[in-house]
């Protein structure tokens, strides 16, 4: 599926807000990193504290945290919208923090795209104008940029609304414009900052599906921010859970649900429907050799095999990608997971 090369690496990234003038010494190398008491003493806020993570090519990496956990600051550090106080941000192996502002402009123009919580549409431009805006900024001729813009507008399902103004669209449609715009310059790295938080629950669901559909076509490397744990496990290949500026745990949704690293993380996973997250592979029993009455894929989620297995008393063979039998599963195993909620 995904190749194991990190597209984006955060290496001990720190962002400290507040007046550092009087506290210059605490950001000196010899005292680094500062403790919470140092920060408190000078009224500083460690919005992002020593975050290290890797985002792989083609994966959906979700950063989940409640408000004030530093997730928005972190994503802005990744694109250098906010200058980190310390650490390294490696993009395709190059440290972004060493780039000049001119180089950053070029990187953002061609390699990064971002979707915003409140859409950030320019009120004076039509849908077409908004989507073409990143290309206009690059100085691409009108005919060419509008052609490209029409393509992405069609991709997000807004064909026919090119001449509407943002205020004439619903929230969901506005965010489709935001998504189209962020894709207009074909970025390698796609940031989505709580893109669906401002939408109604029903629309949110629809947009999540739409997002997964787009990703299955485009295969971008994605950093997705959310405060909604259900959204995180629904969309993510891997999740980083943030609390008070630091990362509590990084793992696949299944990892996090089955093995929460801290009480804080466990608190989120409590109400998760396990069957939807846990894969067959992780609850299967070793191969017994008894004859199987059917086969299920090891990567399938438990909830996906329920209908197949619920009326059968026998044992099902669990297979890996190559069709090799790697374990057995019975109805009791499935029921046990379902009972956990």
């Amino acid at each position, binding site marked *: 599926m995904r190749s194991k090369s990190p597209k984006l690496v955060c290496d001990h990234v720190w962002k400290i807000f507040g007046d550092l003038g009087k506290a210059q010494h605490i950001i000196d190398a010899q005292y680094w990193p500062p403790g919470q008491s140092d920060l408190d003493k000078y009224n500083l806020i460690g919005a992002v504290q020593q975050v290290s993570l890797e985002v792989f090519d083609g994966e959906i990496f979700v950063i989940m945290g409640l408000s004030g956990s530093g997730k928005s600051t972190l994503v802005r550090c990744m694109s250098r919208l906010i200058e980190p106080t310390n650490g390294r941000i490696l993009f395709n192996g190059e440290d972004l923090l060493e780039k000049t502002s001119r180089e950053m402009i070029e990187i*953002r123009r061609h390699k990064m*795209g971002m979707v915003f919580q409140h859409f*950030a549409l320019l009120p004076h431009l039509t849908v077409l104008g908004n989507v073409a*805006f990143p290309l206009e900024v*690059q100085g691409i001729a009108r005919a060419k940029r509008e052609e490209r813009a029409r393509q992405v507008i069609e991709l997000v399902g807004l064909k026919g609304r090119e001449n*509407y103004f943002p205020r*004439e669209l619903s929230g969901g449609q506005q965010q489709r414009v935001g998504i189209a715009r*962020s894709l207009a*310059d074909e970025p390698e790295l796609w940031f989505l900052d709580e893109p669906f938080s401002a939408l109604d629950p029903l629309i949110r669901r629809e947009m999540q599906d739409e997002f997964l559909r787009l990703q299955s076509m485009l295969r971008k490397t994605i950093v997705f921010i959310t405060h909604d744990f259900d959204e995180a496990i629904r969309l993510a290949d891997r999740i980083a859970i943030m609390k008070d500026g630091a990362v509590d745990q990084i793992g696949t949704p299944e990892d996090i649900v089955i093995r929460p690293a801290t009480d804080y993380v466990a608190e989120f996973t409590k109400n998760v429907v396990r069957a939807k997250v846990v894969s067959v592979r992780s609850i299967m029993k070793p191969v017994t050799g008894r004859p199987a009455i059917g086969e299920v894929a090891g990567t399938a989620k438990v909830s996906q095999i329920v209908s197949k297995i619920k009326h059968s008393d026998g044992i099902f063979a669990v297979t890996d990608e190559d069709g090799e039998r790697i374990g057995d599963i019975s109805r009791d195993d499935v029921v046990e997971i379902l009972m956990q909620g």
Partner: protein
Amino acid sequence: MNQISPQQKPALWQRPMLVVWTISLFILTIFWLFGKPYLAWAFKLPRGWQSRLRYHISDAANWLLDDASFFGLFTFTEFTRSIAAIVAVPYDFVLSIISTGFLEGVGSDAIQLLPPLSWIAVIFLVFALGRYARDWKLAMLAAGCFSYLAIFGQWHSSMITLASIIIAVPIGVGFGLMLGIFSYRFWWFDRAISPILDLMQTVPVFAYLVPILVFFGFSPVAAIIATVIYATPPMVRITILALKQVPSELTDLGNMVGCTGHQQMWKVMIPSASESLMVGVNQVIMLSLNMVIIASMIGAGGLGADVLASLRRLDIGAGIEAGLAIVVLAIALDRLSQALAHRPPDPHYTGPKRSLLQRYPYSLAGLAVVIISGLAGLVWAGFQRWPEAWSLTTGKSANEIVKFININFYDQLDAVKTALLLNVLIPFKRFLLSLPWPGVIALLGLAGFSLKGWRLAVLCMLLGLFIVFTGLWPKAMITVYLCGISVIIASLIGIPIGIMAAEWKPAWNITQLIIDTLQTLPSFVYLMPVVMLFRVGDFTAMIAVVAYAIVPAIRYTSHGLKHVSEDLIEAGVVSGCTPLQLLTKIKLKLALPEIMLGINQTIMLALSMLVITALVGTRDLGQEVYIALTKGDIGRGAIAGLCIAFIAIIADRLITAGADRIKTRLGLAK
């Protein structure tokens, strides 16, 4: 400065400021009563101590005027005159279009090549603009206003005034926008310009009329420059504010798509902020109209000159008519610009291709009317200019009314005036004038210290000392006395009206109509009827100042009362407050900071009006500025202007600090 009494009274020694205040006031009283024989210098500044600053300023101005040059290339005067020449080009052009027509040659030999826009054309254009900006109603209002100008014989002057507004507003908006953008982008520029803006908004306009008069000469162009200087500071502030209010997501967006600094500003920030920026444009228009009369003192002509001339010959009828014409013009321009600011952009259009007429109906209709009425004007002059025989005037009747009041009520009016003068005004004035200046300065410092801290104390004392050593202390005290008395009276009238307006809806509707009207009236309009009724002098000045400055006292009071949190009022009701208790124990207490800010605004307006009342013979700093203007004495005008500005700054800082303290204590501070 009264400390508001807290719930439980702490012992005296726990409130050191109270002790200090008591002792200081005691010492000051002793000093005031018995100090004069020993410390004469504290009561009257010896001549030798006076600063010669004003002469230095005049010398510097003369040097600029006579000798200064830029690298020997051109002199300062040439520089200023060339600015004037540049501004004159568009002004003459606009004036030709709407007033004089395009002429060949000069003076009475001039031949008109092309007539100006006819009254029909102008009225139709504002009508179409109103329709385009909002609806038929606005179109009718705008056309109605301009018809008034034609029918009441104010057309010619109005067009001259309009021409200078049309030139001053874009220049003011342009400069304001540029300076605002600069302050937004460079923090050091923001730091540098902020105190200048403060000063610009507190120095009375008259003070900078003097240098403009000297450097640019007596002309409509000099008046435009003065107008621009007066109207630009709010635009700068609104620009800075509007840019700061652009949602951070939009600035992030600009960065993420790779905008350069320039693209970020012009493609993201300015368009996103355009609605707030249009509020600034509206402000510039209104302030330019405020300046119409004052600017006519340095050659603006038009309606302002008409008002000023009739004020000088005490022809109240003509003055009110011209004054009303300014108001009417102001209403039309205000409503039009506000509607344009809030005009929703056309919805998207996806139908078949439209003809030119379908796309630009208003512009094309306007063009047609311009041409047709121009041609019709050649046939009969009445189409070009409103026939004079048809003009109406109300001037006579206004004069009759004043005459009637004067004949029948002179004694009563005079009795009121004399009683107030003898019992209130004069004793208060004497008291202020008798105070020793070191005592007043010390009190200012103490007030500053107890309200905010030593920084404010030092600021207040330094500004006060500046006034002392210019030798203008007695005049400053007269300004304080007139301003103080007017503000007290304005508050005594305004705050109850504000309370009533907030508590009782029908009163609010009437009040709002009245204060909106009062605010659009140019300050001079207040002077005329008062002068007619009470003759010249302090009393007249006071009445005019009260009438002009009462608006914020009303507005802030009712605003403050209306914005007391619903929860607290409900809490009061549930606790069983009577309506009166609700008002006195909850609403007024919480609205106090807002009311204080209203009084602050009242003081600012009173000070600006005081300069104008110098025309009716007050002997305060305003008179000093006015004398400087008539003599073209830059130093004298600048110093007196600064003194007024400093009084305003001291009052403003102290009151704001007091309001902040109360807000903090009430937990209302952000």
